[in-house]
């Protein structure tokens, strides 16, 4: 199939439809409103469900309803809207309800601004909802990857009966570039084993998140974490670029990863041994793989459009194998190739000085 | 002529059935049930029950599980 010029938000919406998404429930918020607009224009034509809900609380709970019947459903929102959905994410994980959430990050905290940012890494990975739970979080760095990961999000949601978040940012959402849709490449599992459909010639089923009897919730949480361990074992993905001899390794996710990749090329041209490690699944985080990379590197520079959020996971993965530096800008401040290159030069010089001095 | 069947261990002793019975055929048992509640008891020595099921309709616990007429 030929490539077409497509905007990030529209690519995600179109890929969702091709993935078999039967329902979209959402509430408008910049910078992702094109997803809802595309769905509103196209889903009804296909006889599928589109509702502009009364709030993000309502939209994610409609996704839950659809999910309990084993139907592919999604919502999309941005920072403050995603904040309102956190209770439902926790409930979905507990009750094992599949669903896809697209989070197109804007600047924060608060209402913040509508500029691109990556300040919702913690929101997606560490937080908000109550209790021990994990969203599967996928992080695309370009429009093609947004399409591929949208397909994967729908598949993983059903495969693991867990909410899956596609964590994009305003740059990706608003950016146009050529990409290819192809066909939905996955074979999804049969949902009839567990989905609600009426207790017809079978025992009644329930999909609930309240487990009061002593020990029941502990047992359930342990079961969920066994599942998360399987997700980590089977689904961890990341991009490695020019790592073989890299002394300085850049880590970045999403669109920053793409800028960093360009900087690696430039640094190599300038004779610096620089590489890139870009997690594609943020949960599961490729911690073991990053640790191996860190063992062979002299330094890691973590780049993010925030004050240092993935940084915690990077440090935890590196676990002292090499020093970790951070360079970031929050709330709409962008990291340009020039800015990153300058930082790389500065750090690389320090490494060279240390090498000359025999420290490393 | 009617008759009711009370699941005495399900009865929590709210006695709304006593109030509902038009023939006043329900009373408080002197024997506690499994949970220590004194359940409602059906006493119909003169076969007055008309099987109207008012007791069952008012019972919040479906403790009156069958009504015959």
């Amino acid at each position: 199939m030929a490539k077409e010029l497509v905007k990030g938000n529209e690519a995600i919406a179109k890929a969702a439809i091709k993935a078999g998404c039967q329902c979209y429930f959402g509430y408008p918020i910049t910078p992702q409103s094109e997803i809802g607009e595309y769905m509103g224009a196209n889903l009804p034509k296909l006889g599928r469900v589109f509702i502009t809900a009364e709030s993000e609380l309502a939209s994610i709970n409609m996704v839950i309803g659809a999910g309990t019947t084993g139907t592919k459903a999604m919502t999309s929102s941005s920072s403050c809207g995603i904040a309102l959905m956190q209770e439902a994410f926790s409930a979905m994980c507990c009750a094992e309800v599949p669903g896809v959430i697209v989070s197109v990050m804007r600047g924060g905290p608060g209402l913040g601004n509508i500029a691109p940012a990556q300040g919702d890494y913690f929101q997606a990975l560490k937080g908000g909802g109550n209790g021990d739970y994990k969203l599967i979080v996928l992080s695309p760095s370009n429009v093609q990857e947004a399409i591929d990961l949208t397909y994967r999000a729908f598949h993983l949601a059903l495969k693991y009966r867990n909410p899956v978040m596609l964590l994009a940012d305003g740059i990706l959402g608003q950016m146009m570039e050529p990409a290819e849709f192809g066909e939905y490449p996955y074979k999804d599992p049969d949902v009839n084993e567990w989905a609600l459909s009426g207790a017809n010639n079978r025992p009644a089923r329930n999909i609930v998140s309240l487990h009061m009897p002593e020990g029941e919730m502990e047992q359930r949480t342990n079961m969920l974490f066994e599942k998360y361990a399987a997700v980590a074992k089977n689904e961890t993905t990341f991009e490695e670029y020019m790592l073989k001899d890299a002394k300085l390794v850049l880590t970045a996710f999403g669109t920053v990863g793409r800028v960093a990749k360009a900087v690696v090329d430039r640094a190599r041209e300038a004779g610096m041994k620089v590489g890139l490690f870009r997690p594609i699944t943020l949960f599961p985080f490729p911690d073991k793989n990053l640790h191996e990379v860190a063992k062979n590197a002299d330094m890691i520079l973590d780049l993010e459009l925030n004050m240092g959020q993935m940084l915690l996971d990077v440090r935890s993965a590196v676990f002292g194998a090499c020093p970790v530096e951070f360079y970031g800008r929050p709330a709409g401040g962008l990291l340009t190739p020039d800015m990153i290159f300058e930082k790389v030069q500065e750090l690389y010089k320090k490494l060279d000085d240390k090498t000359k001095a025999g420290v490393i | 002529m009617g008759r009711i069947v009370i699941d005495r261990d399900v009865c929590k002793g709210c006695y709304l059935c006593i109030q509902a019975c038009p023939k006043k055929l329900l009373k408080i048992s002197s024997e506690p049930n499994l949970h220590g509640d004194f359940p409602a008891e059906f006493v119909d020595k003169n076969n007055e029950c008309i099987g109207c099921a008012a007791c069952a309709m008012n019972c919040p616990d479906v403790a009156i599980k069958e009504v015959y007429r």
Partner: protein
Amino acid sequence: METLVYKRPESLLKDGHFTFCPGCGHGVVLRMIAELIDEFNLQKDTIAISSVGCSIFLEKFFNLDVAGASHGRSTCVATGIKRCKPDKFVFTYQGDGDAATIGFNETIHTACRGEHITTVMINNTNFGMTGGQASATTLVGQVTTTTPMGRKAELTGYPLHAAEIVAKCDGTAYSARVAITDTKNIRKAKEALKKAFEIQMKGQGFAFVEVLAACPTNWHMKPAEAIEYMEKVTETVHPVGVFKDITKETI
């Protein structure tokens, strides 16, 4: 030869005995819902949505598929289910804390969208499960654990009248308030629930039944006193009635 004129509904689980306090109105309503599911032969095609509060444990009582919703979001979950499975019978079972307080926005919008679902809201004018705090429907003057001197309008405003407001929504096909105070009114309540079932089965719009029910424990009354209080006090603030019934309206 005697005939069985009443028995425990089939769509209640055999050992699914209610765990409510003595004299609580929930059991009466759940029993009537189970009876209607039996009468309409809906057991195989029903998906029930539980909510948060004393209305939560549906799966422990019903032999039905049950989806649990977060506090106030039952009608959203129901919307998602019904839109995906329009041939299923979908009802939510909520309290006044859930449907009229934290989730009233969802209730109203579900009504405005005219979703083909049935919502049963138990109104006992307090948060029962958490120990009797004031809710949106608490009467002025009513003593609760958060209004120990009685609800004062100048401090916390006035009770919300859910059935009347829902009736104002264009997507609502049926909205009624009933009170389960005695045999006659329990029969009327069942008629209203039956109507709300039929409305959904005919795809006529959103059906809402608010049921005034006693909460003897948190009202600090004996069950019979609580019923009397409902008749004499609660009903004067939350009057029973059918506020909308499109099947009765003429064009």
